[in-house]
């Protein structure tokens, strides 16, 4: 028998967004599964947060203004 997961307020709050938006389509079993997925997503995001960046570290994606030619 697996140990119950420890409470995670951030993951629970984010799961609540999903439940509010889509809860009427989901069974309790599916909601439980999504709660685990949200928790894994939060843990992935937490792995990014300690890495310090400078103000000059821009998103690595080029934006270009658009003008139809001619």
């Amino acid at each position: 028998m697996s140990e119950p997961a420890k409470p995670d307020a951030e993951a629970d709050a984010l799961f609540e967004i999903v439940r509010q938006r889509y809860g009427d389509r989901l069974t309790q079993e599916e909601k439980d599964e999504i709660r685990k997925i949200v928790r894994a997503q939060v843990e992935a995001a937490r792995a990014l947060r300690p890495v310090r960046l400078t103000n000059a570290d821009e998103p690595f994606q080029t934006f270009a203004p658009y003008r139809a030619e001619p």
Partner: protein
Amino acid sequence: MKADVLFMPLRELGALLKSREILPVELAELYLERIERVGPKYNAVVTVMREHGLSQARRAEGEIAAGNYRGPLHGIPYGAKDLLATAGAPTTWGAAPYKEQRFGFDATVIRRLEDAGAVLVAKLAMIELAGGMGYRQPTASFTGPCVNPWDSNAWTGGSSSGSGAAVCSGLVPFAVGSETWGSILSPAGYCGLAGLRPTYGRVSRHGAMALCWTLDKLGPLASTADDCGLVLGAMAGRDAEDPTSSARPYRYDAAPRATFRFGVIPNVTDGCEGAVAENFKRSLDVLRKIGTVEDVTLPDLPYEQITRIILQVEAASAFEDLIESGGIAGLTAPEDRITPYARDAILAKDYLKAMRLRGVMAREIDRVLSRYDALVAPGRINEAPVLGREFRSAISATAKDIMGAVGNGAGLPAVCVPNGFGARALPTSIQFMGRAWGENTILAAARAYQSLTDWHTRHPDLP
């Protein structure tokens, strides 16, 4: 002719077509007969392009007879992953909600291969929506799981599953697949093929299903690294229809190189199956005959989390309509029907942090790679997973996929080729990953490796 031709390297097959010892129509008929008779055994094909293929083959035959030879792919049949738009045939994206979908145009890669004289004979099966909804099992396709020609109880890998099965079983000499994270290298590795993931932007994505705009790449699966280079040469180049395609010119250079510098991440085989680790060790011995092999330490960054967050957010946005409408309920895999809902809970700030860290990752890995011709690693951590099980939870190995995270996150090219067999007599593989735009270098390394080994000449028993 049959057995000799089915797995013949493209360069040799092209020479026979050029000299008219083989005619394009008879070659197309040979493969079409196998596609129709054998294809269903592997769930490899979505749409047989018989009339279209024979029409292209007749045109090629006339042009070659008239002395208008277009190049090494002229008259050679191929298959395309069913996420590439083709006028006149459905383009299903492997997903039931799109099984009647049609486009009135050809994807740029389809047009470019036609310009090179290649003959499209099949649209090939794939994992639904290229696996971007979080699939965990081989059955995640409305056409059923692709069966590995090496073992009817094993999967081909995905998401370019049909591309792997079709080349491996001699249904086509080469196929086009796509990779967002692992979708070319996985089926190529599990099926004992060469698979090339080009640099992001090397090949136009116009007309290809968008899963992740900043991660999707199109590339070939074939019998050898040289085959992959020949196909890339026809596919690559700037396309006004895809603003992310690069203006850097590409010309495949098949000239051999005398020596190479290879880097290996220490403990890269941790978590790999035993035979995978053993075969990789033997591969390094082979590579030492053509160059140096040095340990390389990568900077400590959350590589997998960076690439995964980008993938999850972009895929959820690309399929926003399907998800919010509840249309994902029509997908085949139960996990694909619910996992995308969770992605609404990823914060925009975290996505942007991943995109900023991606720049750090790209610069750091380029600094490392600038000292080497390629980083090498096992292509896959295991032999092909068993059908009928969730492969993400069922695999015995637990290795992280740092090479996949870095390579796809930073948009770097990689080629994998077979390097042996595992405990279940299924292929294992080695991958060569290079600097951005360094396809010719990694292909030269893979060719050199293949010149010293014969794994690519082994094929499964064919029906």
